[in-house]
């Protein structure tokens, strides 16, 4: 008698086997993720802070961050949560949570000790070392008061919001990014805002009689804010003089990177039901909005999406950073290919990068090499924002499985989610997703924040993968090298990446740079263009290890 899983699982196993065989024939390893949540010791449960009043912020909460806050070489996890909103019963136990990575997939709740149990309404987060003391600090872009937590270097954090001059902003937050806009070595801060919300304008909308959440068109949009780091632990609001103010958006996720390879960092903001922003930096901290002309504002049809998260990465290995933007139900998440000359072309329909994204609402995402074959894949976190969608549209479901789109190396993506292990069978309503190597085995793992429930911890359990290299950049002033760019040359392969401090869906991760090398077992060189500095060449680097490259120790590129 057959004993084991149900027919469905057996069927999935047969399919998985077939896929492994197919991938092997194609020279690709299968991508497999194991759901590690139960073994992780993580007890965090997200709350949207609601009580059936259906406030708009409930369905967009929240992001998370992966950071090595204590510099012990293991990446830790910080989850954001919503907290009880007006008219809902207070519950002081609902707060953000920091988990220390003990190794071997065990995490310990250190919220209390760290002082990071913020009771504000969590939406977005950015992590960066704003005071260049070598420890990562945390900015929370909450609904209501924002928070800047200074990392004291001893496992504790201090709320320095007021002292830093960031205390005045009570708007509804969204994504945020630290980045060095003027190359002075100090991280500046972009703070996206979602909508102008007020309780007195709120009402519960219905769809064919079923109560639903109101979307952003019911509220005026918001200006976003840009803060200059004065280098003395304080920030100055320069939204107006920088050109950022005056543009109204419904900001959600965001990322900062140098899309035009001109050596300065530009800003990308996903706007919910409005054109996305591309703020082109003139190198001195003045920005021009180029969303429309670059192609980033809208999809191929000139249509705005309910854009949610945005991440960047070079999917076609042409040395230019491309972008992936997630969106609402009935819209494809969109892959923008950077074709040079400031143009970002929607190539979703010709690459298959939207496969599986049309029906769910899509959120956290990354262009990341999950099988170390040298070509970046795409991960997409899914889940509807209407908790009762099934009551008025059975095509959508509140809980969804997430998606893995494998890069076939010829400019195309294939949806391999069904065969990507039990980790991709988890059905929740996901929001933020973060990507880092949690067990230092050379493979990128994933942590997903799920709305109204526990998170999902995915261990990359893929086997037969390619060689790899992980790079940590150590700048002279800007200690974590935010904005610095590394190019890895290995035989026929040239891979590029940058250090970002805020990305995806209102999240922050990836201070280390990850490069899959496939079968290439030698690295010719790594070139690092330091933020605001020179380009250096580093040689004698072996594969399958993590290296720290420090500014000033490489050979200056002529």
């Amino acid at each position, binding site marked *: 008698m057959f004993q084991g899983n149900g027919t469905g699982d057996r069927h999935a196993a047969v399919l998985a086997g077939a896929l492994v065989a197919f991938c092997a024939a194609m020279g690709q390893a299968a991508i497999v993720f194991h759901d590690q949540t139960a073994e992780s010791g993580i007890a965090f449960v997200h709350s949207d802070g609601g009580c059936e009043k259906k406030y708009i912020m409930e369905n967009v909460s929240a992001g998370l961050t992966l950071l090595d806050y204590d510099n012990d070489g293991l990446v830790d996890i910080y989850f954001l949560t919503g907290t009880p909103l007006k008219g809902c019963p207070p519950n002081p136990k609902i707060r953000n949570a920091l988990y220390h990575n003990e190794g071997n997939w065990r995490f310990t709740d250190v919220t209390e000790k760290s002082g990071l149990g913020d009771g504000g309404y969590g939406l977005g987060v950015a992590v960066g070392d704003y005071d260049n003391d070598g420890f990562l600090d945390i900015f929370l872009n909450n609904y209501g008061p924002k928070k800047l937590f200074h990392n004291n270097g001893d496992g504790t954090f201090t709320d320095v919001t007021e002292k830093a001059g960031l205390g005045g902003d009570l708007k509804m937050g969204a994504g945020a990014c630290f980045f060095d806009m003027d190359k002075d070595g100090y991280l500046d801060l972009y703070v996206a805002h979602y909508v102008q919300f007020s309780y007195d304008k709120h009402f519960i909308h219905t769809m064919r009689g079923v109560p639903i959440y109101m979307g952003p068109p019911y509220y005026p949009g918001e200006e976003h804010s840009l803060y200059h780091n004065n280098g003395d632990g304080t920030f100055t609001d320069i939204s107006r003089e920088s050109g950022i103010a005056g543009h109204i958006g419904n900001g959600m996720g965001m990322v900062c990177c140098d899309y035009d390879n001109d050596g300065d960092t530009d800003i990308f903001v996903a706007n919910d039901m409005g054109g996305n922003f591309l703020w082109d930096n003139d190198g001195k901290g003045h920005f021009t909005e180029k969303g429309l002309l670059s192609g980033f504002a809208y999809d191929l049809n000139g249509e705005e999406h309910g854009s949610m998260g945005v991440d960047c990465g070079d999917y076609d290995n042409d040395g230019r950073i491309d972008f992936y933007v997630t969106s609402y139900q009935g819209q494809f998440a969109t892959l923008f290919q950077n074709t040079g000359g400031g143009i970002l072309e929607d190539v979703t329909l010709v690459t298959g990068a939207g496969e599986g994204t049309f029906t769910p609402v899509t959120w956290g995402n990354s262009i990341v090499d999950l099988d170390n074959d040298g070509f970046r894949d795409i991960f997409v976190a899914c889940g509807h924002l209407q908790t009762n969608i099934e009551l008025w549209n059975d*095509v959508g479901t509140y809980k969804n499985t997430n998606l893995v789109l494998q890069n076939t190396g010829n400019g195309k993506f294939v949806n391999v989610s069904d065969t990507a292990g039990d980790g991709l069978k988890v059905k929740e309503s996901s929001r933020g997703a973060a990507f880092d190597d949690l067990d230092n085995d050379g493979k990128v793992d994933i942590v997903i924040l799920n709305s109204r429930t526990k998170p999902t911890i995915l261990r990359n359990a893929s086997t037969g993968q390619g060689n790899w290299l992980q790079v940590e950049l150590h700048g002279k002033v800007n200690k974590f090298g935010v904005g610095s760019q590394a190019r890895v040359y290995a035989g026929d392969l040239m891979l590029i990446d940058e250090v970002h401090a805020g990305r995806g869906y209102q999240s922050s991760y990836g201070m280390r740079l990850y490069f899959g090398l496939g079968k290439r077992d030698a690295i010719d060189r790594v070139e690092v263009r330091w933020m605001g500095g020179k380009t250096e060449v580093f040689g004698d680097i072996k594969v399958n290890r993590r290296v720290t490259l420090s500014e000033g120790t490489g050979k200056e590129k002529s």
Partner: protein
Amino acid sequence: MDPVPVVEAKWPPEGWEQKGDEEKIEFLKKEELSQAEALAAEFGRSDDALVALGNVYRKYGNSIQALACWEKALAVNPGRVDAYDGMAMVAMEKGEHDKAAQLWAKGISVKPDTREFRSSMSQALSRAGRHEDAIRALEDEIRLFPTSGLAHYLLGQEHLLKKEYPEAKGDYEKAIALLPNHTGSYYGLMTVCQRLKLADETGRYTARFDELKARDTKETQDSLRGRDDLQGMWKTTAETYLAAESLYRRAGDLRRAEVALKRAETIDPDNARLLTRRAWNLRGQGRLADALTVHEKIAKTNPDDILNLFNMAGICIEIKQYEKAQTTLQSAITRAPEFDGAYRELARLYLMQGRENAAARELAAQAVKLSPTAANYFVYSWACEKNGDHKGAVAALKRSSELEPENPMYRDKYRLATMQD
């Protein structure tokens, strides 16, 4: 199954005013569903009843039952292309783009002259990554319906994806000639001109796109902010009663048809389809002035209802209000430049009045260009004759009688014209 009893429901029901919006919606929802289900039960072999019930299920987000109804409707009448359309739309929403393309292809095989099916199919094919098939579908649509602005635009999108910029530019230009305010086509033009490094044109199209996008955004926001769930329920429930009225009328049960129509009127007195039906009824009774009043009412609430303008002009001509007929037809042309009937009827009006012969010929020629039907050729023939082009008139009459050989008027006129030669 017993027939649905004829019950003239008391309206408003007891305690209606005290009910909140949600209760009212729930009441209407139940009423609409039970009406549609009863119809489908009574007219189980009627594809109309099954399609109507499918549409109601779809409206309430029940795609599984909607699909089942449409499939039953197709079993009764395989020619119901609207059932294929509904099924394909659900497949699209589910992200099953190949399946959607197959369903539209089936619809086309049943009724090859269905407008826009090939365009819809091309979008499904494109989303499925089958771009060459999408192009073929669009080329077919354009061959059959050269005035389909949507098809030209979508073909532009496919050429853009293939980086065939000059071809895409040509497609978008054709689309704009047919749909002057089509936002997507301006975005396409802006994009290809940028790729082709045509700076001036890029600037011009960008400005136009910006304008149109601002308009679209405002319209979307206004419509969302102004959306009233209860109001929407009134309207759609009335539609279901209109479907019932139509079924009963065709089944010869005028009593129940009347009850259904009355109910629809109670629920949504401003419903355009209902008003149109009433106008036709009045026209049938010879009460032309009253019919015109109803058409004018529709034109106020639905100024883009081209058929209404068309019918309104017809009545104006009948009651000899020629000036009003002319402005109404001109308005129809402005609002729907791709609608051939308005060109034809304005030409006919001029010809009847013995004026503007040259303009009449141009208008009739445009009608023929948009849709080469027997009726359009017939009016064009008349216009040719009035402009002294007897040869052209005979050729046009020949086309009319070829296109509709059974029509005695075309046949006789043609015979007469050739005898004169």
